[in-house]
């Protein structure tokens, strides 16, 4: 770097803010930090984690993510074959070394081929076919607790439903959900300096091995689902290498499990703290459930942000970026910007104009967004119907230590007036749902099968 460049660099990074979302107090200070950045520096340079930009303002995040695709790269160039970019995590996690995080760490056109292969399994029309199947799964989870008057919403409901459903869509036996569940969540909530990190790493490795076994099995014995779609995907006239596909499968599990758990548990907790609003949501569900869902998505932003690399010198939202700069797009902070959201720190279930960024913006919009919304709504409805008076126990509630990646929850115990069972428990129901899935070929893409799932009494 020449002296002139160095001066130019100092000049362009003159708006600085010390930002460290991995810090233990970021969760507690999230609103203060957000307010301060919105007021003083909607885009700032931070020297933390190797130095990177942080976009916090709604307009700034929008201009970058939705309108500047030609200047942003998601590429994670693990073998240093292109420009050595580091993908979407800041800092790049040690665990992810040597593997791309699927198409979320790719740029078009490559990224587009993968999405085109998976879209017909994940579109609104594709997901709505599963609703009776999902309802039956939720019913069984609730039935296992309903007579006792006690539930841990995370462990007994909102961990299980996304896990089993994600596996069903993939074409992996749903009874194996426990193999994936703990490692998928623990890999997110365990801080890198925790004494438990080694055990979690081991669990994660075992999960990866099991996943590879399933992948190899489906390759030999094709069965419908996302795994099969990827094996057969046409990636610019070629089949994808196994290593890339394992990265994609990891992305589907990482994206499918922890995020919906995070959204649902926070909404359930908020509704416990606001029982009048809970009654209103139940009463006015036909008109309120959609907007309430979007509001919980906005307010609790499960995936708090994503990293990018600037791929060409550019000026966006008044900032001069240089090729190679790292950038953090904070969906969570963009979602609290008073310039776009009136009283942004309040949950308003009937909020209008809720153009939140919780599924990201631009070409990388969360491909599972329709899964997340549908699972959330189907779980909330049965909770409202079957345990309308539940009270969460703040003493036993455990939020993630940090909100560096996912704004999640580990435990959410609650009590409620016991009620009668409606059917068999989870274990028996998983067997039945597997049969339904196989016999009705539910995991086929919507282009092949349009009919809704049928669950016999």
């Amino acid at each position, binding site marked *: 770097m020449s002296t002139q460049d160095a001066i130019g660099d100092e000049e362009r990074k003159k708006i600085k803010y010390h930002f460290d979302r991995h810090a233990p107090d970021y969760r507690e200070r999230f609103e203060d930090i957000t307010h301060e950045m919105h007021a003083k520096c909607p885009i700032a340079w931070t020297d933390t984690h190797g130095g990177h930009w942080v976009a916090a303002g709604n307009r700034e995040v929008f201009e970058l993510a*939705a309108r500047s695709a030609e200047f942003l790269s998601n590429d994670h160039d693990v073998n240093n074959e292109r420009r050595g970019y580091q993908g979407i995590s800041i800092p790049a996690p040690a665990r992810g070394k040597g593997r791309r995080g699927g198409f979320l760490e790719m740029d078009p056109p490559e990224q587009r081929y993968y999405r085109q292969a998976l*879209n017909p399994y994940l579109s609104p*029309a*594709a997901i709505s076919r599963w609703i009776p199947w999902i309802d039956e799964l939720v019913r069984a989870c609730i039935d296992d607790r309903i007579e006792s008057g006690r539930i841990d919403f995370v462990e007994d409901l909102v961990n299980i439903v996304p896990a089993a459903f994600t596996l069903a869509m993939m074409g992996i036996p749903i009874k194996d959900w426990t193999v994936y569940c703990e490692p998928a969540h623990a890999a997110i909530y365990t801080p890198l300096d925790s004494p438990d990190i080694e055990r979690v790493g081991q669990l994660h490795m075992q999960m990866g091995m099991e996943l590879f076994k399933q992948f190899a099995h489906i390759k030999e014995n094709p069965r419908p689902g996302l795994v099969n779609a990827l094996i057969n995907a046409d990636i610019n006239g070629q089949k994808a290498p196994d290593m890339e596909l394992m990265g994609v499968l990891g992305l589907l599990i990482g994206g499918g499990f922890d995020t919906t758990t995070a959204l649902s548990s926070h909404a359930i907790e908020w509704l416990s703290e606001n029982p009048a609003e809970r009654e209103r949501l139940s009463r006015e569900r036909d008109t309120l459930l959609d907007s309430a869902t979007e509001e919980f998505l906005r307010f609790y932003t499960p995936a708090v942000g994503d990293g990018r690399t600037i791929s060409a010198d550019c000026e966006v939202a008044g900032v001069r970026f240089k090729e190679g700069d790292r950038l953090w797009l904070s969906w969570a902070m963009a979602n609290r910007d008073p310039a776009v959201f009136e009283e942004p720190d309040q949950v308003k279930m009937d909020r209008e104009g809720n153009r939140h960024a919780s599924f990201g913006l631009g070409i990388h919009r969360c491909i599972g967004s*329709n899964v997340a919304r549908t699972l959330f709504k189907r779980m909330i409805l049965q909770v409202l119907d079957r345990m309308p008076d539940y009270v969460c126990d703040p003493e036993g509630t455990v939020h993630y230590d940090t909100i560096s990646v996912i704004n999640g929850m580990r435990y959410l115990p609650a009590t409620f007036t016991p009620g009668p069972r409606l059917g068999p428990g989870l274990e028996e129901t998983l067997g039945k749902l597997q049969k339904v899935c196989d016999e009705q070929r539910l995991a086929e893409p919507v282009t092949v099968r349009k009919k809704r799932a049928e669950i016999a009494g």
Partner: protein
Amino acid sequence: MKVKVDQALCQGHTLCAMKAPDVFELDDVDGHSSPVSPEVPAGLESQVVSAVRSCPERAISVEGTA
């Protein structure tokens, strides 16, 4: 009122179809939105305005008020 969805900008967030289900249809394969007809049926204008204001990608535009 006339309504347009910019196909280069739509990313399939589906909020428009929640706000105005009779005006926007979502593609079966990728969930991207397009208006059923460029002409907004009488009485649905306020739903469409609400959809415009909800679109995360700012991909929807309208002409005229009624």
